[in-house]
């Protein structure tokens, strides 16, 4: 079994090098929690997308990693927060192909499809917080549409 201290972390996202560390930590934490290889890869990829958003669009921020439990299931929650300009049109930002930078525009929407739960809090000018959760085994309650 794992100990919470091996999973819980608050990682800075300030440079490309930090993204590498974010991916490694999320992969390790997911493996410790017993995520399968496919789910590990999905979660790491989602973390990579969101961390890059935090860095590129939010101007840097941090990632909080916390293990969560609900009934029989346990999972991993990743909270990305920045104090950047925020997202003006959330609906549009989540749609595939929309980008404010020069990327593919798949990041935010793609990340939403890679995790079980996905929340964005953002207001123009006051930063963005993206909270995603994935479960090792399905959560006991019915899953929302993904």
């Amino acid at each position, binding site marked *: 079994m794992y100990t919470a201290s091996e999973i819980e972390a608050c990682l800075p996202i300030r440079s490309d090098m930090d*993204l590498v560390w974010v*991916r490694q930590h999320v992969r390790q934490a997911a493996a410790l929690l017993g995520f399968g290889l*496919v789910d590990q*890869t999905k979660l*790491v990829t989602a973390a990579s997308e969101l961390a890059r958003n935090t860095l590129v669009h939010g101007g840097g921020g941090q990632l909080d990693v916390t293990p969560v439990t609900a009934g029989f299931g346990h999972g991993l929650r990743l909270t990305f927060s920045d104090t950047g300009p925020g997202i003006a049109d959330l609906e549009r930002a989540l749609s*595939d192909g929309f980008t404010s930078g020069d*990327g*593919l525009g798949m990041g935010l929407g*793609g990340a939403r499809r*890679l995790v079980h739960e996905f929340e964005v809090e953002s207001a123009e000018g006051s930063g963005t917080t993206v909270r995603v959760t994935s479960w090792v085994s399905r959560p006991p309650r019915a899953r929302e549409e993904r």
Partner: protein
Amino acid sequence: MPEHEAGGPLGTPTLEVRDFLRRRREQIAQRWADEPLFRAVFTLSRDEAVEAGKAVVDALAQVADAQRVEDSDAAGFTGVREQLGRMSASRSRAGLSITQVSNELASLWPPVDKLLTSELEERPAEELRACTTALSTLMGTLRVVAVQTALSEGQALIDRQRLQLLEVATPVIRLWDGIVAVPLIGTLDSARSQVVMETLLNAVVDQHARFAILDITGVPTVDSLVAQHLMKTVAAARLMGAECVISGIRPAIAQTMVHLGLDLGSVLTRASLADALGYCLNELGVAVSGPADGSAVRR
């Protein structure tokens, strides 16, 4: 007051400390040699530790002489910077965190302070306090210098390794006449994908390659940025007349890419490098005959 002035010829606390350091050079070095920091770094002989200690005391005296106890850039530190860096580096290698190293450096202060206090015992409390304050500032600056040196050495090492990694990780391999392959390993960030693209395009020209295989078996995560880099590389190679095949897409990565919504539909992909090579050979019209039983190579 004046009768005490006679003891310290120049009077100011900093110079007082300087004279004290010069007088007690030997004793301080001897005491430091017994501290964990020096004991752990200079394991061969105690004399070596004492010599190193003396060098540090001399540097401190020089800094005090220049009246720059608060300045970590003071010229006096230049001489011992390398030695301090070596000492902190050797402690870091032993598994100590920078905080622990810094604490060990802090533990150099009490023995000196004790010496100073016992020597200036009969001075008025105010003067004594001024001297100990000057000394503690000086020791604090020494700590800053040591940590600075350790950090900058670490940073230099990281920079060097990063450059090395850029160089090492992108070989272009000629698999056959007209077929080159790039095994991609590790993180494909913008800097590395730039290097990959350049070396690959050069190889396409040099080797008159008609096919280029990008093998991503060693890439742990394929997110939208990595996919974008791959597609740009493919597009550039195509402009040069080479067809790209991406191979080594593992099952977990394939599922993730589908969920992420990445469309590599315009790019030729194969599950393994062998499959990709088979495809290219077939396209080039090269037949590879199997062993005696005549079984054909897989396409």
